């Protein structure tokens, strides 16, 4: 591998209460990969994703994104870095009382002049791009509806459109389908997959279900109690590995 696109080295996070969420996690991701992070609830998946765009401050270890050492950036540096990293959340995290279009436009906040954005003025070309982004995820007609009027699947698609507005190099998806039903899960993940394949956006996505990881991931890493316990191809996870990751009593559940 040439210079890795994303490099995580000895990443450790201890929360103020003493919970060790991540312990000495190291891995590398090449440009254009779709890496799925699996593991039980509380295994450190969310913390890992948030350490990469520094929504969570790591206790120790270093992270590089596209040659930039994330962990060495100052406040302004972090802000600039975040502009290029899209993030998708389990609870969608839309601003519920704002229209869908405004929610999508917030993806561009890091670039627009501060005063324009504070009075909610958006240049027409940006509005057009937001509409195009909604078109891509198939909900162009919902642009002027309040975000909380949408179904879960539609809200997550707004979340994807918001990330799309950032023209990201990397998408961090934190359990993007954990709140959705199986059919909707697939449709949402397919949009993410399309961004990965067509635009070459690197994706780091945590998922609950191994079946989804196998279906969408080009590579899987597994966390258990904050430690990296697996790093390989989806097909390499056999029943032995599965029990290693999820514990002896676990039974694999398929999601159609």
């Amino acid at each position: 591998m040439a210079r890795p696109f994303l490099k995580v080295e000895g990443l450790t996070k201890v929360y103020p209460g003493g919970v060790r969420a991540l312990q000495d996690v190291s891995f590398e991701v090449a440009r254009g990969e779709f890496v799925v992070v699996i593991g039980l609830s509380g295994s450190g998946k969310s913390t890992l994703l948030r350490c990469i765009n520094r929504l969570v401050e790591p206790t120790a270890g270093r992270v590089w994104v596209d040659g930039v050492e994330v962990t060495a950036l100052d406040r302004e540096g972090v802000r600039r870095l975040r502009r290029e990293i899209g993030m998708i959340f389990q609870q969608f995290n839309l601003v519920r009382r704002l229209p869908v279009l405004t929610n999508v436009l917030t993806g561009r906040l890091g670039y627009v002049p501060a005063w324009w954005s504070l009075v909610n003025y958006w240049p027409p070309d940006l509005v057009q791009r937001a509409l195009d982004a909604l078109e891509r995820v198939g909900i162009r007609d919902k642009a002027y509806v309040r975000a909380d009027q949408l179904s879960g699947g539609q809200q997550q698609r707004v979340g994807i459109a918001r990330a799309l507005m950032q023209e990201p190099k990397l998408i961090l998806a934190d359990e993007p389908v954990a709140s959705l039903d199986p059919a909707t899960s697939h449709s949402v993940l397919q949009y993410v997959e399309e961004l990965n394949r067509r635009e070459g956006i690197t994706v780091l996505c945590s998922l609950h279900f191994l079946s989804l990881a196998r279906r969408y991931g080009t590579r899987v890493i597994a966390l258990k109690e904050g430690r990296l316990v697996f790093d390989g191809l989806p097909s390499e996870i056999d029943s032995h590995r599965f029990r290693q990751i999820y514990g002896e009593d676990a039974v694999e559940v398929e999601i159609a």
Partner: protein
Amino acid sequence: MTGRGLRLAAVLLAVAAFAYGWRVTRIDLGELVTKAHLVRPLVRDLLRPEILERVPRTQEVAVPVALGGAPPPLSPARGPRVEASSRSVRVGQEVELRGEGFAPGRPGRLVWRDATGAPSQLAQFTTDARGSFRLRVRIPDTLGDRGELVAVVVLPETAWRPSETLRLVAERMVETVFLALMGTAMGVVFAVPLSFLGARNLAHGTVGLAVYGTSRTVLNVFRSVEPLILATVFAVWVGIGPFAGVLALGVHSVASLGKLYSEAIEAIDPGPIEAVEATGASRLQVIRYAVIPQIVPQFIAFTIYRWDINVRMSTVIGFVGGGGIGFLLMQYINLLLWQKAATAVWAITLVVALMDYLSARVRERVV
């Protein structure tokens, strides 16, 4: 000591406390009955507020006499009329007036109305069976040179009209509502920024936490000062009147709104904040797009609720010099004008109930 012993001691202590309390507060339930006659007239008057008053109808005619060089008013073309022996009169001169076409056999008076409309009576007369009168009168030198002479004849029938008290009460009530509005506005202006500084979830780092602690302390200190005391202080500072009331209510509103607002901010969903932060937005942008949309309904509801409370509170504020209806009510009470006081009390009740109802309706809609 055993559990039973402790319980017995607690009961004895409670009994002793209540017995002492009964004695020092001089509770005497019998007085409620034996002294009921003292309160009866008061209650009766409170049930009879001065709303309308009966005033006799009158016929009023300007006397066509010029005083101090001003041209004499014209006699009316129809109805009762007055004629004077001379059309221009100086102070100290006598003039003879003849009136006709008035109601027959009624008492009348000749009145001088100065520029402010304040009347002073110059003479009295009675109309004859045909509704006419004759009158000789000397123009006294105490009159100013601006005003008019008017003949007023009192008719047998009377008319109802809103009482002077009602007019005054209404005026003060409007003042009170606006006093509360301005106090609330002042509270909002200062409480909004303070509430953002005093919200735990927006405080980051040592500086943020220090600012958070400071604004919370400021809010708590202000809130613990009674509005009555604030009003007393401001009445001394800027003088008795509605402005003192505005300041007192304003300061109190800053504290209470600040606390309510910051609690509303603390209760918001942190998800959108995280999402907007993750796009590379600045601190202000995060507040603009992730915080404000979530708190607007609560802010509106709290503000209207505060206004409602302030209207109620401004009554009491008025008692200590804060202006508005309270000040008027206090004067009526001190002068034992119970019927007038009743008018004010009923007006307050009505307006407060109305505000209460409206604010509840508005809050229902926005939340």
